[in-house]
């Protein structure tokens, strides 16, 4: 039985890239523990030999013809950019 303690909150928030205040972290310990406890009842279901269901409507993925059918609207793609310059997104340094 897993616990959602403060250490777990901190580890998961790092994975999720989510800034949390200490008050939020405290609150989440309780709330996420409750949620986890609630969903853990799935452990009692016998799923031996059952395949996981990912594709609910049994649709096979179509492949389209390898043709250029879209694109050529750089301005639209950049329209909501927090920062853009000369047709590029400007972001904080990615590689040290």
């Amino acid at each position, binding site marked *: 039985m*897993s616990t*959602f303690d403060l250490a*777990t*909150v901190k580890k*998961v*928030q790092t*994975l*999720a*890239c*989510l*800034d*949390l205040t200490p008050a*939020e972290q405290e*609150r*989440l310990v309780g*709330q*996420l523990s*409750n*949620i*986890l406890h*609630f*969903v*853990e*009842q*799935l*452990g009692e*279901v016998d*799923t031996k030999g*059952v*395949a*996981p*269901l*990912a*594709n*609910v*409507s049994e*649709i096979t*993925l*179509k492949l*389209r013809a390898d043709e250029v059918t879209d694109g050529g*609207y750089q301005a*639209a*793609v950049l*329209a*909501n*950019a*927090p*920062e853009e310059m000369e047709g590029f*997104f400007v*972001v*904080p*340094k*990615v590689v040290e």
Partner: protein
Amino acid sequence: MSDLNRLTIAAALEGLKKRSFSAVELTQAHLSAMEKMRHLNAYVTETPDLALEQAKAADARYAAGTARALDGIPLAIKEMFCTKDVKTTACSKILSNFVPPYESTVTQKLLDAGAVFLGKTNQDEFAMGGSSTTSAFGPPVNPWRRTDAPDVNLVPGGSSGGSSAAVAAFTAMGATGTDTGGSIRQPASYCGITGIKPTYGRCSRWGIIAFASSLDQAGVFARTVQDCALQLEVISGHDPKDSTSADRPVPAFSSALSGDMKGLKVGIPREYRVDGMPAEIESVWQKGIEWAKAAGAEIVEISLPHTKYAVPTYYIIAPAEASSNLARYDGMRYGVRVPGENLKDTYSKSRGAGFGAEVKRRIMIGTYVLSAGYYDAYYIQAQKVRRLIADDFAKAYTQCDVLLAPTAPSGAFAIGENEDDPVKMYLNDVFTIPASLAGLPGMSVPVGLDSHGLPLGLQIIGRPWDEATVMRVAHALEHAAAFRTLPAEVRDAA
């Protein structure tokens, strides 16, 4: 003229064809109604100029005899749908400045059919919720009020609460919604209107802000089953831009409404009779069973043995998919950016500032169940239980054609209630989640009132791709129920 917003879509189409009134007059009637009902906070963005422009174009087509399927019909659009050049935020701070340069497939289809867009409606942030109270723009209010506590603001349900409230308050003739775990059906039930979530894959998800990709589905609200059918016909269909949309022809749903249920077998799922279920829910369910019999249906008791695992299964799968879908909101290409010390810090600060509490909860649970060491025990296990739940339905459909159940375990609750207890809030979805997990079409029809004078709905769940039978049954029950009560806000405004 000011009563034009009280018409059904079907009646309005008749009137527009006959030129009894113009599309502009019909839209203006809605714009005045929206002004009177603004305190309900159903709309987060109103688009009156756009609406009047679209109405004028519709009038020109009626005059030229080239009118389209929904020409001139004023609709409300849930904020989850990207609408070109109209702010689209998913009711989240993180997208507060986002203006899509493209139109979602579903809304494009409505525009191509001549529909008029009155505005974007309020919802739970990123569609995560069952009350619409997690909206970053303040909660929408249900136009219904308790007879014994008329001063208390009630939730219109969620996540598509704004769309539902707008239609119930006659400030839109119909509306789009999205339904992931019940977000169309439950608000329809709380607001005394009809709402349908079609089979997963019936409508395109392209341009709909993604919450949980294996569960999300577009659908519609209206005040009658026929009006839902008229809208659903237009928004359904294969979209090459959505690889999960089905390449299947769209039946003429509005022609399936035969008025009877002769030859149909209606299944009653025994596990939906939950502990502590209020007597009045059981009572409307019984009424529904009697009406079905009177309309010519055979009643069959069936079992869906894994029902009790549906809500926990959903609350592993949906947050897991959400944690993946919401990873894109990192402050780099769109949405809010809060600068940090470095790249990762900018991601974290932007997301920390931009996401609300419920969204953060779901991202955290989702990330956890997908993380190393927990993936098999939680996420894979949940996917396996999901298959068992889907198999339960498939077995049931060898004995019946549709299932009949309540939509929600109660009428609308007060804004602020349940907020301190996320799990309690999640259990309001107990009747709607199973059909979502199995990808089945589900529709809610208003059938009666509870002891507070609030609407209660019944849910019809069908076989995959069989929206026609779902709507046929809903239509027959609608006729039998003859639900005519108006919400307090509408009665008092008259």
